[in-house]
């Protein structure tokens, strides 16, 4: 389960929605050990951008040694990546983070916005019954990838897809129930899910995001507050890149 720092080769790149790109990398060293909910660091070729961009794994194919990343162009770094074509090489490190832990029982998989991609690999790994709830601002993406694997419920801000509102509105609207929640998305969504899960005593694994530097737990840039004193940091902070990005609802203080 080591971390590899290697040159990966781009084998596919396509825009799948406005500013949303899907890039497939040939990176067998990383694909071997990777699991759902983990991420990899991508390094820019431009000398003015030194920090890696952490991007979650959308699909992992151990047989072909390929990783699929679905990411949003938010700055110059991700814009640079979106220009890579099949055959281009890119420096990467990973797999990083703990990833999700598939648990027995009926699963409710919730993704919001650019938090949706990592849930695809999770759905591919989950053994039992899976219900998927996806929340979009307006434009949908990856919907076929999910619907081919499980029952999918939609929410969108403009109401064009499924319930008008958030994933929580969809859960209530459709009366979605389950034994375990797995979620990734914007902080307000994660807060709502945390409250919902704690109240109902449902196990919930939440994947968090924060600006990162090292990606291996050394620099302490990407911490979140923890309810208990963390064994490693010895303060009420957990390292998202190393102890996370996936935490149980009861572990973290998202206020």
């Amino acid at each position: 389960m080591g971390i590899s720092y290697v040159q990966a080769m781009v084998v596919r790149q396509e825009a799948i929605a406005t500013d949303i790109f899907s890039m497939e990398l040939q990176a067998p060293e990383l694909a071997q050990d990777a699991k759902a909910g983990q991420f990899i660091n991508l390094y820019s070729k431009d000398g003015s951008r030194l920090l890696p961009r952490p991007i979650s794994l959308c699909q992992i194919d151990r047989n072909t040694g390929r990783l699929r990343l679905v990411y949003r162009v938010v700055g110059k770094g991700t814009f640079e990546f979106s220009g890579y074509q099949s055959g281009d090489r890119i420096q990467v490190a990973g797999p990083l983070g703990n990833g999700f832990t598939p648990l027995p029982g009926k699963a409710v998989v919730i993704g919001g916005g650019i938090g949706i991609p990592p849930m695809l690999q999770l759905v591919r790994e989950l053994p039992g019954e899976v219900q998927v709830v996806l929340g979009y601002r307006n434009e949908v993406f990856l919907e076929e990838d999910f619907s081919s694997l499980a029952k999918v419920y939609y929410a969108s801000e403009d109401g064009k897809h499924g319930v008008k509102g958030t994933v929580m509105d969809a859960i209530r609207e459709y009366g979605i129930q389950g034994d375990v929640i797995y979620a990734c998305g914007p902080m307000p969504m994660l807060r709502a899910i945390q409250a919902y899960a704690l109240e109902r005593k449902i196990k919930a694994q939440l994947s968090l995001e924060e600006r990162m530097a090292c990606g291996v737990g050394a620099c302490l840039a990407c911490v979140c507050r923890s309810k208990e004193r963390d064994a490693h940091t010895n303060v009420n902070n957990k390292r998202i890149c190393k102890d996370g990005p996936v935490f149980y609802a009861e572990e973290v203080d998202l206020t």
Partner: protein
Amino acid sequence: MNMSVRIAGVTWKNPVTVASGTFGSGEEYSGLLDLDQLGAVTTKGVANIPWAGNPTPRIAETYGGMMNAIGLQNSGIDVFVKRDIPFLKQYDTKIVVNVCGKTVSDYVEVVERLGEEPVDMLEINVSCPNVKEGGIAFGQDPKALSQITKEVKRVAKQPIIMKLSPNVTDITQMAKAAEEAGADALSLINTLTGMKIDVHKRIFAVANKTGGLSGPAIKPIAVRMVYQAAKAVKIPIIGMGGIMTGEDAVEFIMAGATAVAVGTATFHDPMAAVRIVNEIKAYMEQYGIQDISELKGCV
């Protein structure tokens, strides 16, 4: 060919360590590179008690560099002594422990605790720009710097490296103050105080508003200060500030540094520190340098 250097009586197998705070306790990177290949490992700053650090976001990328405002989060000396020192003792490298505090007595307490521990050198961080009390306050005033250096030296069992702030008008004044107060060596430079504003969100890029600027962007300032300090004092200098390659390291040594520390580069290349050791070796071979000391201050 000899790459080993002697700093305040301690011999490193090569002149390369890591900059405090960029390498954790060494454990975090031990799976990515061989710590045995480093001259020394400089640990993340440790205080007498655990610190929670600053709110997030704690970092921001800048043009050719980065800003950080971690706020010296650390697990405290008890855990450090129990967990981190034993881990590092497994490796054949020197251990430099970076010490931080809010008051002089905080520093003194940690230095006393470490006196009984198997560590080789102590680096006193009097230049952190990201904490309200302590830190840089000691590093921008020669009198305060002199006082804390004396207090620390009074109880220290290991050689003391004072890590200086570049946010001063005259680095030589600070270097001399530390030397006269008994410092055994100097580390410079710490980060430069910077600020970044997100013009779209209209907020500061790091929650602390200001952060410490590091990376190759500021290397010329670091090289200049190492050159000036090396001319002003006799004690050895560990040079740092934007070292990305072996040639960058050689540049600091030519400016007068005895050793160097690799910091931000590790975030761009996890193996940077060891790569740089090999690149220095390659440079020495290319120019037929028998002993690394031939390069010191040779410009």
